[in-house]
């Protein structure tokens, strides 16, 4: 069997006295789409940062493409793994094109101009995410959905094959959610990207995934195909909340509704 894209074994992360992740183990195959779900504070975002080497594990092992993550230098890792964090209030003065070009950082030296290959990768990433016509606009002038697509374009420009996304559809209206989800499907189905997405969207994102990894209290509560986890009992255990499932969701999956007490 081929090397998995990502291997996590016995991962512990502690900040001071606080244990964020404990004994987390899983693998992600090449070209697999994994949705990471779980209640707030379960350690999902921390796990994602750890997979990109931004946080060092307290104990345990993370391998990317069969090689321990600490053996990579940052630029090398950036050529394989891209991370799209949740939107934050960074400097948004840059144009979309400048921002996407920054994605080429692991391939360029300090003062050298971008090469033909770099420009090609930037244009391809902008075309794929549909932000080419926004190239001259400043990031600050974009809508939330456009900004998220530009962020994904910059991550794609890095030229890796593993894409990590932290709540890619949060804060977006329905139209923009659909655009992002279509884009993720295309990257995964057509371009062969390995995708790991942290999400609270149990209907669309989870239904698109090959595998769902449910975290709770810093550990893996369940994992399996969406059809196994999209179950009233299983979801109730993961989230400590009641759910109602109805037929008719994306890709033949049920639709998940939070069940409210009617009385």
């Amino acid at each position, binding site marked *: 069997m081929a090397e998995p894209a990502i291997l996590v074994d016995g991962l512990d992360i502690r900040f001071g006295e606080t244990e964020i992740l404990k004994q987390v183990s899983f693998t992600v195959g090449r070209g697999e789409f994994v949705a990471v779900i779980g209640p707030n504070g379960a350690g999902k975002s921390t796990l994602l940062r750890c997979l990109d080497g931004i946080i060092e594990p307290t104990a345990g092992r993370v391998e990317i493409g069969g090689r321990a993550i600490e053996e990579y230098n940052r630029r090398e890792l*950036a050529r394989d*793994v891209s991370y799209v*964090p949740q939107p934050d209030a960074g*400097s948004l003065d840059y144009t979309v094109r400048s921002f996407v070009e*920054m994605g080429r950082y692991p391939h360029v030296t300090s003062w050298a101009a971008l090469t033909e290959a770099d420009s090609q990768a930037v244009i391809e990433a902008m075309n794929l995410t549909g932000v080419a016509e926004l190239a001259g606009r400043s990031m*600050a002038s974009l809508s939330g959905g456009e900004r998220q697509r530009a962020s994904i374009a*910059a*991550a794609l420009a890095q030229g890796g094959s593993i894409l990590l996304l932290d709540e890619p559809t949060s804060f977006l209206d329905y139209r923009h959610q659909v655009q992002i989800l279509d884009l993720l499907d295309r990257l995964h189905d057509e371009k062969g990207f390995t995708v790991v997405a942290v999400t609270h969207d149990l209907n669309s994102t989870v239904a698109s995934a090959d595998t769902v990894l449910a975290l709770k209290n810093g550990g893996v509560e369940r994992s399996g195909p969406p059809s196994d986890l999209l179950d009233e009992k299983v979801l109730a255990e993961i989230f400590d909340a009641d759910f109602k499932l109805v037929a008719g969701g994306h890709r033949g999956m049920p639709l998940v509704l939070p069940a409210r007490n009617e009385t």
Partner: protein
Amino acid sequence: MSPRVRLAVLGLAAIAVLALMPLIGLQALPVSVLGDPRGTDPAAVIFWQIRVPRVMAAFIGGAGLALGGAVFQAVFRNPLATPYTLGVASGASLGVALASRLGLSFVVVGLSTNVAAAFAGALLAVGVVWALTKLRPDLSSTILLLAGVAMNFFFSSVILFVQYTASLGDSYRIIRWLMGGLGAVDMRTVIHMAPVVLVGAVVILWRARELDLLATGPEIAASRGVPVARTRTILFLATSIMVGGVVAGCGPIGFVGMMAPHICRLLVGPNHRTLLPASILFGGAFLAVCDTAARIILAPAELPVGVITAFLGAPFFLWLLVRNARVGSNS
């Protein structure tokens, strides 16, 4: 006009400022002094030994302060961050105030008492901020800036205390230094400042792409391949030593560091590969012009240049605050 063309125009303007400012002054100088750098007649001495070093010092100082501001604004992702906001200038001032009050007189590696004391004070202030970031790496830039503000108040109160207990003469010397000024600079000041600013500038310019990424956020920067902690450390140290050297040479000249990068951002855009050279050119030229104005406004008396930069800088600062509030703070 593309940012590169604008940068070239800025470069030409800076060269013009460097060429013209030494010619301006109370004393009209014959053109013949230009060809006589080693001349001994008063006109040649005024031109080559007083005005030229002074314009050079102003340019180097302004360039260093502006470059330092551009770096800190990107690293702290805050439009108000400068080495001054974090206490570099007030630390240097405290160094000078203490040295004056205690009547210290020494020479360290060719540096006069004031220069050495200012440099030590600047590094002390930076050291405190640095220790905070090391002890608590999770501190946000807002908290660090607040810590800098608190340190500024602390140093200011110690300076006031020192002044209160000082003799009238010492007290005047301290106040005069605090105003910032290039009245006392000579070729030696230029020779002390130039290598410090040059080395700092090379270290910083080499990291222009990293500054772009740090400005968009530490997580994005790390994900793109920037070793964030190491890069921040190098930039922080290079900037602090550079600005410490400038403050030691010229006194605490305010607002250049904050104002110049913002004006340059409006002129050439946010990309640091054009913004950093633009800040160097604009900051240098701006301080050279302000210093010339300081020389001639009340001639033959001389205004401290800090009075002029702050006089222009403070209204700009207010405009910046209002503008940020209008577009919704992006910090």
